[in-house]
């Protein structure tokens, strides 16, 4: 049900472009104004969210330790999973961000014959997630390089890049697993389906416009460069598929800061991953620390004075 809501939402977005551009000819709105608004929302929203997180202090030192601590010199410490210095934290974070190390640990547990738990490595989610994120990164870089460096020729042969195929497969997997595994379906919100379907919409429209609609790449670049240099022009021949792609990307950008997609930035601030395991070596300060009511030794001694005397333990005040 949740998946259907989200699918309808993405379809409505596409219909919106068909009506707005195809029907009403609102080229400037969809080619210039909405993308600008989306980028502004993305940047402002992103900074706002980062600011909100960064402003909240880290009062306590709470890393999750996944390996041997640094203690006695002859015990080999695991400086990645239990980093005691900055290099270790950088290594841990790099492995987390670039290779999704924690997800790589994933395993599935099953109750066999009604009495025995069996653990099996389960790397599919890790593989799907890694494939999606890396393809996305490469595709983004390719977009950027097309815009800024290479001259494009309208005669360029439409190519289907391997990353295009991978991202489509990976996103499809990420969607399908939400639908077919009952547990994942149970925890999935409409927004979870929406994010993956919107990304799928972006990817599909991107692939379609290259492969089947053979859009005028020169015109597209002119449009893009115009927007980027703040001299927007609406060149002739930018087809409807481009507007669909552009609108879905704009939606994604505007949606990003208000959604779970912010995990991309949040991971860097995660205190269970980015702190050293050195809390006994260096004092961590709580900026909002306040003094609390305690039961002092003097009060304790007063309360138990006779008893303490009775068993012959020393007293501060006789």
């Amino acid at each position, binding site marked *: 049900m949740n998946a259907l809501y989200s699918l309808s939402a993405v379809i409505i977005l596409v219909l919106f472009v068909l009506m707005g551009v195809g029907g009403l000819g609102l080229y400037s709105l969809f080619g210039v104004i909405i993308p600008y608004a989306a980028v502004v929302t993305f940047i402002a929203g992103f900074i706002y969210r980062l600011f909100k997180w960064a402003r909240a202090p880290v009062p306590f030192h709470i890393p999750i330790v996944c390996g041997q*601590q640094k203690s006695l010199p002859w015990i080999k410490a695991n400086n990645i999973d239990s980093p005691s210095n900055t290099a270790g934290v950088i290594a841990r974070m790099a492995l987390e961000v670039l290779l999704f190390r924690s997800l790589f640990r994933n395993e599935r547990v099953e109750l066999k014959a009604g009495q025995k738990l069996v653990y099996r490595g389960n790397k599919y989610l890790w593989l799907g997630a890694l494939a999606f994120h890396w393809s996305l990164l490469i595709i983004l870089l390719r977009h950027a390089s097309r815009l800024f460096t290479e001259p494009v020729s309208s005669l360029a042969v439409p190519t289907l890049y391997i990353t295009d195929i991978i991202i489509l497969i990976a996103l499809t997997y990420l969607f399908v697993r939400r639908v077919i595994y009952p547990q994942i379906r149970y925890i999935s919100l409409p927004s979870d389906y929406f994010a993956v379907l919107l990304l799928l919409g972006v990817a599909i429209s991107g692939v379609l416009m290259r492969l089947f609609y053979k859009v005028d790449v020169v015109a597209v670049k002119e449009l893009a460069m115009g927007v980027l240099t703040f001299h927007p022009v609406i060149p002739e021949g930018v087809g409807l598929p481009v507007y669909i792609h552009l609108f879905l990307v704009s939606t994604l950008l505007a949606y990003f800061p208000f959604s779970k997609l912010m995990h991309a930035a949040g991971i860097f601030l995660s205190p269970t991953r980015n702190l050293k395991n050195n809390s006994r070596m260096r004092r961590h300060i709580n900026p909002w620390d306040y003094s609390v009511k305690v039961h002092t030794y003097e009060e304790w001694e007063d309360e138990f004075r006779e008893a303490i005397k009775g068993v012959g333990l020393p007293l501060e005040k006789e």
Partner: protein
Amino acid sequence: MKMPEELLKIDYTLPKKSWLEPTVEFRKGTYCYSASAKCQEYLGLPNPRQWQPYEEDWKLPENWKKTILEGMKERLNKYRSFRLFLDICVRCGACADKCHFYIGSGDPKNMPVLRAELLRSVYRKNFTLAGKLFGKFAGARELTEDVVKEWFYYFYQCTECRRCSVFCPYGIDTCEITMMGRELLDLVGCNIDWVLDPAAKCYRTGNHLGVPPHAFKPAIETAVEDVETITGIRVEAPINRKGAEVLFIAPSADYFAMPHWFTLLGYLMLFHEIGLDYTWSAYASEGGNFGLFHSMELAKRLNAKIYAEAKRLGVKWILGGECGHMWRGIHQYMDTFNGPADFLEEPVSPITGTRFENAKSTKMIHICEFTADLLNNNKLKLKPSRNDQWKVTFHDSCNPARSMGLIEEPRYIIKNVCHYFYDMPENTIKERTFCCGSGAGLGADENMEMRLRGGFPRANAVKYVHEKYGVNLLACICAIDKAAFPPLLEYWVPGVEVAGVHELVGNALVMKGEKERTTDLRGEPLRAEEGKGGV
């Protein structure tokens, strides 16, 4: 109590109803009783009253909703972890089957992701744009009394073991969520007795069991007599002695409960044998901290006595005994709570000269670090054959493993003092260790069914080594483990006993001038060849 086969008919099918609709059934055996008004009043906590979770009316204060939402807002601004972990979960589900309570109960709200969503949904409704605009579609829901009841049920069905966080791609720590959830519940007076009763006792007497000084001393003296009976040696066990070099602090169960007691004998024998200049304290007579299972404030209040007493007694540094959450508190919180301990010195072992640089700020070291160092320097004479009746496995307690990284030290000790050691499967030890199911204050008798369910994954791994290698002893370094495992293993894998690591040390330790030992620390007769046999 149901038979194990009955309990294992775990229903993993999911309800038709969305989790957004709060439903909770307080079924006997699966929840803890409420804290008494007396404890709450003693500690000065809000809304003290008599009530029970199974009652319809929870007697929440009039402005309960406002209180909780304001408390939430305050914590969102005070804890980056809280705000971040509410924001960035993508519900990938990697954590789902990592929770021992989910594995053992099949209740989907015990998947860490949903446990957190119980709180996230209210956060979205009240603090995020998407939640305000799209409501249910954005996973947002109103805070109602039923939601509060659901929080209570599930936040007191989490042992804050942090296992799920190991697998989370963003390191979202359910422990943080549960801690915040419990703090919010406390604001309207919803606490459990098994947490607040020990906390109140600890505040008053210095320890969770409420042992006053005139019972503390006889307890330690009894242990001294036990050591004498077994070894023929009268050891010193000074209490509240000023000017000692080291203050020793153990969980109170060590001097009052079984099988903890034998670990205490082990400590006393070890300290005597190496001639450690140390003292116990009847005031700082507790290393554990049930405040941690309630609120950061109460944790700080209970923790304060450790440094205060170290200062009063004028010791140089502090040594801590075998206890799980105690070490979460010492390792990750104490220095921040009540430091800086600038009146102490960086711990140096007086026997080996080893400087414990890893504790140079907090100035407190774990007894396993201390003993491992002694062993590595060949300072102890051992007869591991005196532990030959045991085939040992080691349970990594959640906090020492996942919050400290104390993994090799206890293993090194065990391998030195025992001949037969077998680790459980890798998926269930070290950073992936499974909780005993009774941590974070959930060890109440009335909660037994849930404890047995939560402890099932651990027990199942014990069963594996029991069947494969004949393991008959589970060693651990946590007082709650030592209390929780005997009934748990009795239920799931009979024939496996529970012991502290320093009980095994005590058994193997050859003391100068000791009489020929005829029994182990438990008073069980040693077989002749064990007692006399080679090293």
